[in-house]
């Protein structure tokens, strides 16, 4: 087996507020290979976002290590950290909260290009148009304020922004959860296509196990700060070994077509 792209070991994070302690992460280890999608599922409060944020170094863990491309992220700082940061990007659930409301689509996409010195001011418009094109958006959208595009378009802008630094890993935290089923399908197709074309890896966080199943190679199930089960997506869904896994599978709403038809014909 190749060395994993991302490997976290023994991550622990305890939140303390008002005398209460909550274990956000309790000895979590997980790896993601290049070009692989790991789906991370679990009930509300199980620690999914905490893990995503620790990987992004938006939160410092109490203990544990994060290695990316063989380098220990915790030991890096300054220029070395910035270089690695470029290779990992994140997309959140609600893209409007992640953008300055007065910014235009072009501003949003110019930021990472400027911060990481990826395109000169003269090159930026062309690069922005390319980024928009890669997520299936028209370059005409560039001049619009981000609040004046639809939710699905905004989420694609967020993905385009994440792509700007040509990352190897994108952490998606409930990135499609707020979207309509129709728009959600488009965004998922886009993510899968980008993975095929560029060998991107995803850490795909969601509480919707059916969606996770559709896009993940492997699935990790979290509960109360711990990973309680990991395995190939098909296997985990077909035969969950943990109690949490079984509860999540059982709770997926199913389209009751055949069942209803049977009832209808009996009533007829």
């Amino acid at each position, binding site marked *: 087996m190749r060395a994993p792209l991302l490997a976290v070991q023994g991550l622990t994070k305890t939140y303390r507020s008002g005398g209460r302690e909550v274990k956000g992460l309790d000895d979590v280890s997980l790896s993601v290979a290049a070009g692989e999608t790991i789906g991370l599922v679990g009930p*509300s409060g199980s620690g999914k976002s905490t893990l995503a944020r620790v990987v992004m170094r938006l939160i410092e863990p109490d203990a544990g290590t994060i290695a990316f491309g063989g380098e220990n992220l915790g030991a890096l700082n300054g220029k070395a950290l910035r270089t690695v940061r470029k290779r990992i990007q994140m997309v959140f659930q609600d893209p409007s909260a992640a953008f300055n409301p007065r910014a235009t689509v072009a501003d949003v996409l110019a930021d990472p290009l400027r911060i990481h010195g990826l395109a000169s001011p003269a090159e930026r418009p062309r690069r922005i148009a390319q980024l928009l094109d890669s997520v299936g958006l028209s370059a005409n959208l560039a001049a619009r304020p981000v609040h004046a595009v639809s939710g699905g378009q905004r989420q694609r802008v967020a993905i385009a922004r994440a792509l700007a630094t040509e990352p190897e890993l994108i952490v998606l935290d409930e990135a499609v959860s707020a979207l309509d089923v129709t728009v959600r*399908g488009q965004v998922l197709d886009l993510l899968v296509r980008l993975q095929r074309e560029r060998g991107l890896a995803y850490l795909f966080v969601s509480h919707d196990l059916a969606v996770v199943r559709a896009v993940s190679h492997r699935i990790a199930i979290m509960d109360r700060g711990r990973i309680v089960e990991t395995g190939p997506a098909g296997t985990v869904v077909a035969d969950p070994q943990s109690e949490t896994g079984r509860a999540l599978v059982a709770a*997926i709403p199913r389209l009751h077509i055949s069942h209803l038809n049977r009832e209808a014909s009996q009533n007829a």
Partner: protein
Amino acid sequence: MSGVLTSLRGLTVTYGSGEAAHMALQGLDLDILKGERLAVIGESGSGKSTLALALGGLLPPEARIDGRIDWPGFAAPPRAGRDIGFVFQDAGASLNPVIPVGRQIAEVARLHLGLSRPEARDRARALLARVRIPDPDSALAAYPHQLSGGQRQRVAIAAAIAGEPSLLIADEATSALDTIVQAEIVALLDELVHAEGMTLIFITHDIALASGFADRIAVLHDARLVEARPAAELLGAPGQAYTARLLASHIGLDTPPLIAEEQP
């Protein structure tokens, strides 16, 4: 099922006026039957919440209603809170953060059923048990922030049914919850409707969730009613291309994966 609870004819709702006018519902014809579980599905912005607010007489002042909403069984138009109970997506926001949940439920019962304070408190306790909040006695004194999201949603349901409404409208009441809690709440709503003979309007993005228990499904698209038919019929053979498209975009466990299965 015995007759029509409410009958909508040419129901049109317009927000704003002049240049800014926006039609959120356009010419809706629909009868909602007593005791039925009607799911309303459709994309974001299709007009689902507008329909709920129009039924409850809760539209904001900038909204104009055209067409008719008739309530054949009522002498006077039904009142939200008493005859119509609402549960919204964000129950945390509809509960008052500084009042214990028991008192919030009791207030509804006192106001609408004319109960005395002790009677209302007993009813609140019974309702908390009814929505299966563990240890209802101590839960009476709990503040909303001391409950989990799923528990707050149950409390919101208890408050919504405290006035014994004949119609309960749940607008994305389970969308913010994880699927395990979601399944529990849906089962609870289903059971309440059966036991209390209430009519339920269940608004959701999630067609699979609706398919699990609705008698009938109404599909909204761009302010119009696409179709409203018995759930089995509509799911088995969608009458409209749009409904078929909505059904096809559903992702379930049996949806073929979008990726090649083998590991990279």
